[in-house]
């Protein structure tokens, strides 16, 4: 319509003159053209004054022709567009043409968007402007809708967890959403222009090239699982990608669009699950215990190798069959009841515990077994895992052990009694030996006193022979017998004491070891002063033990230390102790003559006296000490260096139950 010219002048067509009929015909034509136009049509002067307009103007603006004739074109423009409109007016006048979109304000105040085009022209040598206006309401609404729709898709794209991207046919990114950037560790800006090969290794990009190629050729979209991509930080991720061909409006392929999802975690979880399953299987299959899974109906779902060995049924034979098969008949009902109870109440008496049960093997033999039961729930229901041990051997071993222990106890008792009885019974012949030796000696006295009377009857040779026998041989023999019997008696007494120490009742009580050692030292004070022996007693803790026993222990060790001091240097004996929890350790150190290495094992043996024997004793002291300490759950040992001194160390347990039990 901008081309429609010339446009006749004149506004008041009713006042046309007759003689102007010809021109009136032309006027009518232009009027018809103007009013036939669908949009607005103005002819305005260079000041914007209205010269001519079509009917639509009156319709749209609501002003009458008379009102319009007195108005300026800018009067129809909404206030916000006034400036734009004035500028456009100037543009038209200077450049000859301008167009703009403005809001037309109607008389009742309604605003309507119009697309206005102005064209400068000359009418009867006067510069004027022809303006045409098209209602832009519908187009504007359509634009708005498009904008909204685009916004919606953009929002979806940017907020969705899956990555979305578009690449051109060469594989360069033309568009990516935020999620894709996150997936790959790049910013959106970094990705645009990048090629997919840049975040894939060679194998993957070769594979992807083939896939893209296939899609290009067939036009069919594709879904690619587990595509390995390399993130910006170098870590690898697994993506699941759906790819479709992208075409332009003419249908020519211009690139690809794809949606990708990071499945790394899911794959890792699946892998972890698979590994866990694998691990369970491997553990279950190599376990020495039978591992059996049953479902809530009591049917076997898993049966490991050990179970095959224990029961004699193969996995194939057992899976799907009732566990009751491997139970002795008499336990089956209880088992079924237990299963029903668990099914209805969820409570079990045996789940989480270990119970002794009986198993029935395929060959029909019954055996004692130990069963630990656990339960677990899955979507498929409740399952039970039983760990079964054939304890036939264990039971046998336990019984055997018990029998050995009893035998040991009995033989131990027998040894104690033996020592005791023997030492008594040995005394019986000793009494006779001593008695009759004595009788013999007195009989010999009787003979001797009467011997002189018989002398004249014997010749010289016989006389001296008899005298020899009577006064030397027989008394000497009797002396040997008497001495031997005395020694044997003292041995027997020593054994008797040892046997008694092993049997006597201990009365544990708290003992102040400082006081006890002090009083032991005092009993030896005369000897200590005389020989200038120094005894240093450290701070000693209390112990709970049998007082008499501890007195004997300390007395023996200390008197040994004094006995075996080296006379070439002043004697020095140190008693120290250290309490450490369950037991107390005592140390008695002397600077005496020491014990030779080869004699060390004789120290605690009965009747053994090591080293130079210049002091009296039976060699039983330390044997007694050792027995008493053992009764108290303690130990004794010694360290020594010949010529330097000896240290005896003994422990005594803080509580004396052990000693009491050993009695």
């Amino acid at each position, binding site marked *: 319509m901008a081309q429609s010219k010339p446009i006749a002048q004149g506004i008041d067509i009713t006042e046309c003159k007759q003689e102007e009929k010809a021109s009136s015909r032309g006027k009518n034509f232009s009027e018809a053209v103007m009013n036939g136009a669908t949009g607005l049509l103005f002819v305005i002067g260079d000041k914007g004054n209205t010269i001519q307009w079509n009917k639509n103007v009156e319709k749209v603006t609501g002003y009458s022709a008379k009102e319009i004739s007195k108005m300026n074109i800018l009067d129809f423009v909404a206030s916000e567009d006034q400036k734009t409109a004035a500028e456009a007016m100037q543009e038209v006048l200077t450049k000859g043409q301008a167009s703009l979109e403005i809001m037309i304000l109607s008389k009742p105040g309604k605003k309507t968007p119009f697309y206005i085009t102005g064209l400068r022209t000359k009418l009867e040598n006067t510069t004027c402007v022809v303006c045409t206006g098209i209602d832009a309401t519908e187009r504007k609404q359509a634009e708005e809708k498009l904008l909204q729709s685009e916004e919606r898709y953009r929002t979806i794209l940017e907020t969705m967890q899956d990555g979305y991207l578009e690449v051109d046919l060469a594989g360069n990114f033309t568009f990516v959403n935020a999620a894709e950037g996150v997936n790959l560790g790049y910013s959106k800006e970094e990705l645009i222009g990048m090629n997919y090969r840049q975040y894939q290794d060679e194998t993957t990009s070769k594979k992807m090239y083939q896939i893209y190629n296939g899609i290009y050729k067939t036009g069919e979209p594709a879904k690619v699982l587990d595509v390995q991509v390399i993130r910006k930080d170098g870590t690898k991720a697994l993506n699941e990608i759906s790819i479709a061909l992208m075409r332009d409006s003419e249908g020519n392929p211009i690139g690809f669009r794809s949606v990708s999802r990071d499945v790394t975690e899911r794959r890792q979880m699946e892998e972890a699950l698979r590994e866990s399953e694998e691990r369970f299987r491997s553990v279950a299959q190599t376990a020495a215990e039978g591992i059996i899974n049953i479902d809530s109906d009591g049917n076997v779902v898993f049966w490991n190798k050990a179970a095959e060995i224990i029961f004699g049924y193969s996995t194939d034979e057992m899976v799907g069959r009732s566990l009751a098969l491997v139970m002795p008949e008499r336990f089956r009902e209880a088992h079924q009841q237990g299963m029903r109870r668990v099914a209805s109440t969820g409570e079990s008496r045996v789940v989480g515990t270990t119970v002794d049960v009986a198993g029935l093997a395929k060959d029909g033999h019954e055996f004692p077994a130990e069963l630990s039961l656990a339960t677990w729930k899955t979507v498929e229901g409740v399952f039970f895992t039983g760990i079964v041990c054939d304890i036939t051997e264990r039971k046998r071993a336990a019984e055997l052990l018990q029998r050995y222990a009893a035998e040991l106890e009995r033989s131990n008792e027998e040894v104690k009694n033996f020592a005791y009885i023997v030492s008594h019974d040995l005394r019986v012949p000793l*009494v006779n030996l001593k*008695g009759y030796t004595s009788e013999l000696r007195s009989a010999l006295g009787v003979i001797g006193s009467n011997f002189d009377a018989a002398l004249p009857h014997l010749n010289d040779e016989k006389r001296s022979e008899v005298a020899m026998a009577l006064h030397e041989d027989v008394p000497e023999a009797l002396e040997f017998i008497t001495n031997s019997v005395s020694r044997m008696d003292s041995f027997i007494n020593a054994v008797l004491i040892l046997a008694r120490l092993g049997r006597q009742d201990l009365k544990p009580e708290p003992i102040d070891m400082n006081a006890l050692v002090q009083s032991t030292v005092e009993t030896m004070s005369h000897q200590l002063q005389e020989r200038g022996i120094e005894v240093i007693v450290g701070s000693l803790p209390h112990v709970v033990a049998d007082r008499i026993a501890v007195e004997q222990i300390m007395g023996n060790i200390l008197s040994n230390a004094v006995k075996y001091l080296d006379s070439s240097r002043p004697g020095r004996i140190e008693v120290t102790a250290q309490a450490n929890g369950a037991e107390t350790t005592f140390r008695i150190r002397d600077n005496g003559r020491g014990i030779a290495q080869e004699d060390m094992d004789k120290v605690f043996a009965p009747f053994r006296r090591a080293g130079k024997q210049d002091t009296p004793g039976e060699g039983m002291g330390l044997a007694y000490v050792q027995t008493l300490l053992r009764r108290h759950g303690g130990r004794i040992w010694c360290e020594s260096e010949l010529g330097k001194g000896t240290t005896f160390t003994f422990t005594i347990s803080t509580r004396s139950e052990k000693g009491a039990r050993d009695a």
Partner: protein
Amino acid sequence: MPDIPEVTILLVEDDPGHTRLIEKNLRRANIKNEIAFATNGQEALDYLFCEGGYANNKHASHMLVMLDLNMPVLDGYQVLERMKKDERTKRIPVVILTTTDDPREVRRCYELGCNVYITKPVDYEQFCEAIRKLGLFLLVATMPNGDGG
């Protein structure tokens, strides 16, 4: 000491040597009573109850028993127990004369009702002394009537 000569001493001892030594020393201690001998516990009980080999025997109404503990067939404890449980023999004085000096056994014998417990010393002088003292004890002790009265 009018009662003493009537008392018969029953020496229960399985070792013949001991028997002889005890007898000798009792005699040396001037004990002139009749001494009967038994070599085990069963024999001693037979003698006391006039049973077995001593059936139809009639022994002295007053008795004193010297009893060893470790003996075959029936030991000293069993003899002591049976004697003290039986109305006929429970008043007979019993002297335990044995090699055992374990305090627990001494206590057990007194609990069973023995009157004197003497350990036989291995040393012969001590042995003689012990028997001599026993003899003196017997000389001064008053014996109860042994025939159940």
